[in-house]
Protein backbone atom coordinates (compact mmCIF):
# COMPACT_ATOMS: atom_id res chain seq x y z
CA UNK A 1 0.00 0.00 0.00
CA UNK A 2 1.51 3.37 -0.95
CA UNK A 3 1.89 5.89 1.82
CA UNK A 4 2.04 9.65 2.07
CA UNK A 5 3.29 11.99 4.76
CA UNK A 6 1.45 15.16 5.67
CA UNK A 7 3.70 17.76 7.27
CA UNK A 8 1.87 19.88 9.85
CA UNK A 9 4.12 21.37 12.54
CA UNK A 10 1.36 22.75 14.71
CA UNK A 11 0.95 23.29 18.43
CA UNK A 12 -1.30 20.59 19.85
CA UNK A 13 -2.68 23.05 22.39
CA UNK A 14 -3.32 25.87 19.92
CA UNK A 15 -7.11 25.70 20.47
CA UNK A 16 -6.73 25.82 24.25
CA UNK A 17 -4.33 28.74 24.07
CA UNK A 18 -6.74 30.62 21.83
CA UNK A 19 -9.71 29.95 24.15
CA UNK A 20 -7.74 31.23 27.16
CA UNK A 21 -6.56 34.29 25.32
CA UNK A 22 -10.08 35.16 24.07
CA UNK A 23 -11.49 34.80 27.58
CA UNK A 24 -8.67 36.93 29.03
CA UNK A 25 -9.45 39.68 26.55
CA UNK A 26 -13.18 39.66 27.19
CA UNK A 27 -12.68 39.73 30.99
CA UNK A 28 -10.26 42.63 30.61
CA UNK A 29 -12.85 44.59 28.62
CA UNK A 30 -15.34 44.28 31.45
CA UNK A 31 -12.67 45.29 33.99
CA UNK A 32 -12.25 41.88 35.64
CA UNK A 33 -8.62 41.33 36.61
CA UNK A 34 -7.94 37.60 36.97
CA UNK A 35 -5.24 36.30 39.30
CA UNK A 36 -4.12 32.66 39.15
CA UNK A 37 -2.62 31.85 42.54
CA UNK A 38 -0.32 28.82 42.45
CA UNK A 39 1.89 27.17 45.08
CA UNK A 40 2.66 23.95 46.94
CA UNK A 41 -0.05 22.72 49.32
CA UNK A 42 0.10 24.58 52.61
CA UNK A 43 2.03 27.68 51.59
CA UNK A 44 -0.85 29.93 52.56
CA UNK A 45 -2.94 30.69 49.47
CA UNK A 46 -6.23 30.72 51.39
CA UNK A 47 -4.72 32.71 54.29
CA UNK A 48 -3.43 35.30 51.82
CA UNK A 49 -6.90 35.59 50.28
CA UNK A 50 -8.52 35.96 53.71
CA UNK A 51 -6.09 38.76 54.55
CA UNK A 52 -6.66 40.38 51.15
CA UNK A 53 -10.45 40.36 51.50
CA UNK A 54 -10.21 41.75 55.05
CA UNK A 55 -7.88 44.52 53.91
CA UNK A 56 -10.11 45.57 51.04
CA UNK A 57 -13.43 45.22 52.79
CA UNK A 58 -16.04 46.51 50.33
CA UNK A 59 -13.64 48.62 48.28
CA UNK A 60 -13.62 46.21 45.35
CA UNK A 61 -15.95 43.60 44.00
CA UNK A 62 -14.05 40.35 44.52
CA UNK A 63 -14.90 36.79 43.49
CA UNK A 64 -12.94 33.65 44.28
CA UNK A 65 -12.74 30.21 42.67
CA UNK A 66 -10.87 27.63 44.74
CA UNK A 67 -9.61 24.34 43.39
CA UNK A 68 -9.00 21.26 45.49
CA UNK A 69 -9.06 17.51 44.97
CA UNK A 70 -11.70 17.10 47.65
CA UNK A 71 -13.71 18.99 50.33
CA UNK A 72 -14.97 22.56 50.39
CA UNK A 73 -12.81 23.59 53.36
CA UNK A 74 -11.14 26.50 51.56
CA UNK A 75 -14.45 27.82 50.22
CA UNK A 76 -15.91 27.72 53.75
CA UNK A 77 -13.01 29.85 55.02
CA UNK A 78 -13.58 32.50 52.37
CA UNK A 79 -17.39 32.52 52.35
CA UNK A 80 -17.66 35.09 55.19
CA UNK A 81 -15.84 37.63 53.01
CA UNK A 82 -16.66 37.17 49.32
CA UNK A 83 -18.67 35.11 46.82
CA UNK A 84 -16.72 31.90 46.40
CA UNK A 85 -17.16 28.73 44.42
CA UNK A 86 -15.26 25.54 45.20
CA UNK A 87 -14.00 23.63 42.17
CA UNK A 88 -13.51 20.01 43.18
CA UNK A 89 -11.24 18.34 40.66
CA UNK A 90 -11.95 14.80 41.84
CA UNK A 91 -8.31 13.79 41.74
CA UNK A 92 -6.89 16.03 39.04
CA UNK A 93 -3.74 17.84 40.12
CA UNK A 94 -4.53 21.18 38.45
CA UNK A 95 -7.40 23.37 37.24
CA UNK A 96 -8.31 23.62 33.58
CA UNK A 97 -9.98 26.45 31.72
CA UNK A 98 -13.31 24.62 31.33
CA UNK A 99 -13.59 24.19 35.12
CA UNK A 100 -12.87 27.88 35.61
CA UNK A 101 -15.51 28.83 33.02
CA UNK A 102 -18.07 26.65 34.79
CA UNK A 103 -17.08 28.03 38.21
CA UNK A 104 -17.38 31.62 36.99
CA UNK A 105 -20.83 30.95 35.53
CA UNK A 106 -21.92 29.61 38.92
CA UNK A 107 -20.80 32.67 40.89
CA UNK A 108 -23.64 35.07 41.78
CA UNK A 109 -22.30 37.75 39.42
CA UNK A 110 -20.14 37.46 36.31
CA UNK A 111 -18.57 40.89 36.74
CA UNK A 112 -15.87 41.39 39.33
CA UNK A 113 -13.03 43.87 39.75
CA UNK A 114 -10.80 41.04 40.92
CA UNK A 115 -11.33 37.33 40.31
CA UNK A 116 -8.93 35.11 42.23
CA UNK A 117 -8.38 31.54 41.12
CA UNK A 118 -6.78 29.56 43.92
CA UNK A 119 -5.22 26.65 42.05
CA UNK A 120 -4.70 23.11 43.36
CA UNK A 121 -1.56 22.99 45.54
CA UNK A 122 1.11 21.74 43.13
CA UNK A 123 4.20 23.40 41.65
CA UNK A 124 4.20 21.24 38.50
CA UNK A 125 1.03 20.74 36.44
CA UNK A 126 -0.69 24.12 37.05
CA UNK A 127 2.30 25.72 35.28
CA UNK A 128 1.09 24.21 31.98
CA UNK A 129 -2.48 25.49 32.16
CA UNK A 130 -3.45 28.97 31.10
CA UNK A 131 -6.63 29.85 33.03
CA UNK A 132 -7.19 33.15 31.20
CA UNK A 133 -5.44 34.99 34.02
CA UNK A 134 -3.92 38.45 33.72
CA UNK A 135 -1.44 37.74 36.48
CA UNK A 136 0.11 34.50 37.66
CA UNK A 137 1.28 34.66 41.25
CA UNK A 138 3.46 31.94 42.74
CA UNK A 139 3.40 31.79 46.50
CA UNK A 140 6.43 30.31 48.25
CA UNK A 141 6.50 29.98 52.02
CA UNK A 142 9.70 30.31 54.02
CA UNK A 143 9.27 26.78 55.42
CA UNK A 144 9.47 25.21 51.96
CA UNK A 145 13.11 26.14 51.41
CA UNK A 146 14.74 28.72 49.16
CA UNK A 147 15.88 26.14 46.58
CA UNK A 148 12.46 25.76 44.93
CA UNK A 149 12.64 28.09 41.89
CA UNK A 150 15.46 26.15 40.20
CA UNK A 151 13.69 22.85 40.92
CA UNK A 152 10.39 23.95 39.36
CA UNK A 153 11.57 26.20 36.53
CA UNK A 154 8.39 26.19 34.49
CA UNK A 155 6.28 27.46 37.38
CA UNK A 156 8.65 30.33 38.09
CA UNK A 157 9.19 31.09 34.38
CA UNK A 158 5.45 31.43 33.80
CA UNK A 159 4.73 33.48 36.93
CA UNK A 160 4.72 37.29 37.00
CA UNK A 161 5.07 37.72 40.73
CA UNK A 162 6.56 35.63 43.55
CA UNK A 163 5.05 36.23 46.96
CA UNK A 164 7.15 34.93 49.84
CA UNK A 165 4.78 34.00 52.63
CA UNK A 166 5.16 33.17 56.34
CA UNK A 167 7.86 35.80 56.75
CA UNK A 168 7.32 35.78 60.51
CA UNK A 169 9.10 32.39 60.51
CA UNK A 170 12.30 33.70 58.89
CA UNK A 171 14.26 33.72 62.18
CA UNK A 172 13.59 29.99 62.62
CA UNK A 173 14.19 28.53 59.16
CA UNK A 174 17.19 28.44 56.80
CA UNK A 175 15.65 30.63 54.09
CA UNK A 176 17.29 33.58 52.39
CA UNK A 177 15.06 36.07 50.58
CA UNK A 178 18.10 37.27 48.62
CA UNK A 179 19.11 33.82 47.37
CA UNK A 180 15.55 32.74 46.48
CA UNK A 181 15.11 36.01 44.56
CA UNK A 182 18.42 35.54 42.71
CA UNK A 183 17.53 31.91 41.89
CA UNK A 184 14.07 32.84 40.60
CA UNK A 185 15.41 35.74 38.51
CA UNK A 186 17.80 33.42 36.65
CA UNK A 187 14.61 31.82 35.37
CA UNK A 188 12.61 35.00 34.92
CA UNK A 189 14.64 38.19 35.07
CA UNK A 190 11.65 40.52 35.46
CA UNK A 191 9.87 38.49 38.15
CA UNK A 192 8.41 40.80 40.81
CA UNK A 193 8.88 39.80 44.44
CA UNK A 194 6.83 40.67 47.52
CA UNK A 195 6.97 39.35 51.07
CA UNK A 196 4.01 38.86 53.37
CA UNK A 197 2.89 37.42 56.65
CA UNK A 198 -0.83 36.92 56.14
CA UNK A 199 -1.78 36.14 59.73
CA UNK A 200 -0.07 39.27 61.07
CA UNK A 201 -0.99 41.39 58.06
CA UNK A 202 2.57 42.37 57.19
CA UNK A 203 3.03 43.18 53.51
CA UNK A 204 -0.70 42.87 52.78
CA UNK A 205 -1.17 46.57 51.99
CA UNK A 206 1.71 46.48 49.48
CA UNK A 207 0.32 43.30 47.89
CA UNK A 208 -3.15 44.83 47.56
CA UNK A 209 -1.65 48.01 46.10
CA UNK A 210 0.34 45.92 43.61
CA UNK A 211 -2.87 44.21 42.44
CA UNK A 212 -4.70 47.52 42.17
CA UNK A 213 -1.87 48.97 40.06
CA UNK A 214 -1.77 45.94 37.78
CA UNK A 215 -5.52 46.07 37.34
CA UNK A 216 -5.34 49.77 36.53
CA UNK A 217 -2.72 49.05 33.84
CA UNK A 218 -4.97 46.37 32.36
CA UNK A 219 -8.02 48.67 32.36
CA UNK A 220 -6.03 51.48 30.72
CA UNK A 221 -4.71 49.09 28.04
CA UNK A 222 -8.10 47.52 27.29
CA UNK A 223 -9.68 50.95 26.76
CA UNK A 224 -7.17 51.43 23.93
CA UNK A 225 -8.09 48.13 22.23
Amino acid at each position, binding site marked *: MPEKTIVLNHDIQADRRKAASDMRESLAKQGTFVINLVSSPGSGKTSLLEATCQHWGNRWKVGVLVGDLATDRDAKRLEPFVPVRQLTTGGAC*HLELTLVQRGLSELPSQRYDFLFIENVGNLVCPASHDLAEHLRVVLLSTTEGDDKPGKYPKMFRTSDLMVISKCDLLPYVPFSIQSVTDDAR*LIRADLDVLTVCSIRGEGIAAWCQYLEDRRQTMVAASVLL
Partner: protein
Amino acid sequence: MHEQSLVKSLLRQVDEVLIENRGSWASSVEVEIGPLSGVEADLVRSAFEQLSAGTRCSNATLLIQLSLLVVRCRDCLSESRLAGFVFRCHHCGSGNVQVISGDALRLLSVTMDSPVEIEHA
Protein backbone atom coordinates in the same frame (compact mmCIF):
# COMPACT_ATOMS: atom_id res chain seq x y z
CA MET B 1 -2.89 12.92 33.99
CA HIS B 2 -1.80 15.85 31.89
CA GLU B 3 -0.11 13.64 29.27
CA GLN B 4 -3.31 11.60 28.90
CA SER B 5 -5.42 14.62 28.05
CA LEU B 6 -2.80 15.92 25.63
CA VAL B 7 -2.57 12.55 23.88
CA LYS B 8 -6.36 12.52 23.58
CA SER B 9 -6.22 15.83 21.74
CA LEU B 10 -3.30 14.57 19.68
CA LEU B 11 -5.32 11.52 18.57
CA ARG B 12 -8.30 13.73 17.74
CA GLN B 13 -6.11 15.99 15.64
CA VAL B 14 -4.50 13.05 13.81
CA ASP B 15 -7.99 11.76 13.07
CA GLU B 16 -8.92 15.10 11.52
CA VAL B 17 -5.77 15.00 9.37
CA LEU B 18 -6.66 11.48 8.21
CA ILE B 19 -10.19 12.52 7.25
CA GLU B 20 -9.00 15.63 5.43
CA ASN B 21 -6.45 13.64 3.45
CA ARG B 22 -8.61 10.58 2.85
CA GLY B 23 -6.33 8.24 4.76
CA SER B 24 -7.85 5.34 6.66
CA TRP B 25 -5.05 4.68 9.14
CA ALA B 26 -1.85 6.29 10.33
CA SER B 27 1.41 4.37 10.14
CA SER B 28 3.42 6.96 12.00
CA VAL B 29 2.82 10.10 14.00
CA GLU B 30 5.72 12.46 14.61
CA VAL B 31 5.65 14.89 17.53
CA GLU B 32 8.07 17.36 19.03
CA ILE B 33 8.40 17.75 22.79
CA GLY B 34 10.15 20.76 24.25
CA PRO B 35 11.93 20.82 27.62
CA LEU B 36 9.49 23.48 28.81
CA SER B 37 6.36 21.79 27.44
CA GLY B 38 5.50 20.32 30.82
CA VAL B 39 5.20 16.81 29.42
CA GLU B 40 7.48 13.81 29.70
CA ALA B 41 8.33 11.81 26.56
CA ASP B 42 8.01 8.41 28.28
CA LEU B 43 4.59 9.30 29.67
CA VAL B 44 3.45 10.55 26.25
CA ARG B 45 4.63 7.27 24.73
CA SER B 46 2.75 5.10 27.21
CA ALA B 47 -0.37 7.25 27.00
CA PHE B 48 -0.24 6.96 23.21
CA GLU B 49 0.06 3.15 23.35
CA GLN B 50 -2.84 2.92 25.76
CA LEU B 51 -5.19 5.45 24.17
CA SER B 52 -4.57 4.62 20.52
CA ALA B 53 -5.97 1.08 20.93
CA GLY B 54 -9.05 0.72 18.76
CA THR B 55 -8.41 4.00 16.92
CA ARG B 56 -6.98 4.63 13.46
CA CYS B 57 -3.61 5.09 15.17
CA SER B 58 -3.59 1.64 16.75
CA ASN B 59 -0.72 0.45 14.55
CA ALA B 60 1.03 3.77 14.28
CA THR B 61 4.58 4.31 15.45
CA LEU B 62 4.98 7.39 17.63
CA LEU B 63 8.15 9.25 16.67
CA ILE B 64 9.28 11.70 19.33
CA GLN B 65 11.71 14.51 18.55
CA LEU B 66 13.07 16.17 21.67
CA SER B 67 13.58 19.83 20.86
CA LEU B 68 15.93 22.33 22.42
CA LEU B 69 14.98 25.38 24.39
CA VAL B 70 15.67 28.44 22.22
CA VAL B 71 15.27 32.04 23.34
CA ARG B 72 15.47 35.34 21.48
CA CYS B 73 16.97 38.32 23.25
CA ARG B 74 14.77 41.42 23.20
CA ASP B 75 17.83 43.62 23.76
CA CYS B 76 20.36 42.39 21.16
CA LEU B 77 17.92 40.29 19.08
CA SER B 78 20.22 37.25 18.89
CA GLU B 79 19.07 33.71 19.55
CA SER B 80 20.52 31.33 22.14
CA ARG B 81 20.04 27.62 22.70
CA LEU B 82 19.75 26.96 26.42
CA ALA B 83 21.15 23.76 27.92
CA GLY B 84 19.41 24.25 31.28
CA PHE B 85 16.87 26.64 32.70
CA VAL B 86 19.01 29.73 33.16
CA PHE B 87 17.23 32.21 30.93
CA ARG B 88 20.07 34.46 29.83
CA CYS B 89 21.15 35.60 26.38
CA HIS B 90 24.46 33.89 25.50
CA HIS B 91 25.57 36.94 23.52
CA CYS B 92 24.91 39.94 25.77
CA GLY B 93 23.92 38.30 29.07
CA SER B 94 20.51 39.97 29.24
CA GLY B 95 17.64 38.21 30.99
CA ASN B 96 15.15 39.98 28.76
CA VAL B 97 14.60 36.92 26.59
CA GLN B 98 11.58 35.36 24.96
CA VAL B 99 11.15 31.61 24.48
CA ILE B 100 10.75 30.97 20.76
CA SER B 101 11.01 27.18 20.81
CA GLY B 102 10.85 24.37 23.34
CA ASP B 103 7.72 25.24 25.29
CA ALA B 104 5.20 23.21 23.30
CA LEU B 105 4.07 19.80 22.23
CA ARG B 106 3.83 19.97 18.45
CA LEU B 107 2.36 17.60 15.89
CA LEU B 108 5.01 17.55 13.17
CA SER B 109 3.70 15.05 10.65
CA VAL B 110 1.37 12.14 10.02
CA THR B 111 2.20 9.30 7.63
CA MET B 112 -0.84 7.44 6.31
CA ASP B 113 -1.98 5.02 3.66
CA SER B 114 -2.57 6.62 0.32
CA PRO B 115 -5.14 4.67 -1.64
CA VAL B 116 -4.75 4.81 -5.41
CA GLU B 117 -7.53 7.00 -6.69
CA ILE B 118 -9.74 5.37 -9.29
CA GLU B 119 -10.88 7.72 -11.95
CA HIS B 120 -14.41 7.19 -13.15
CA ALA B 121 -15.07 7.61 -16.83
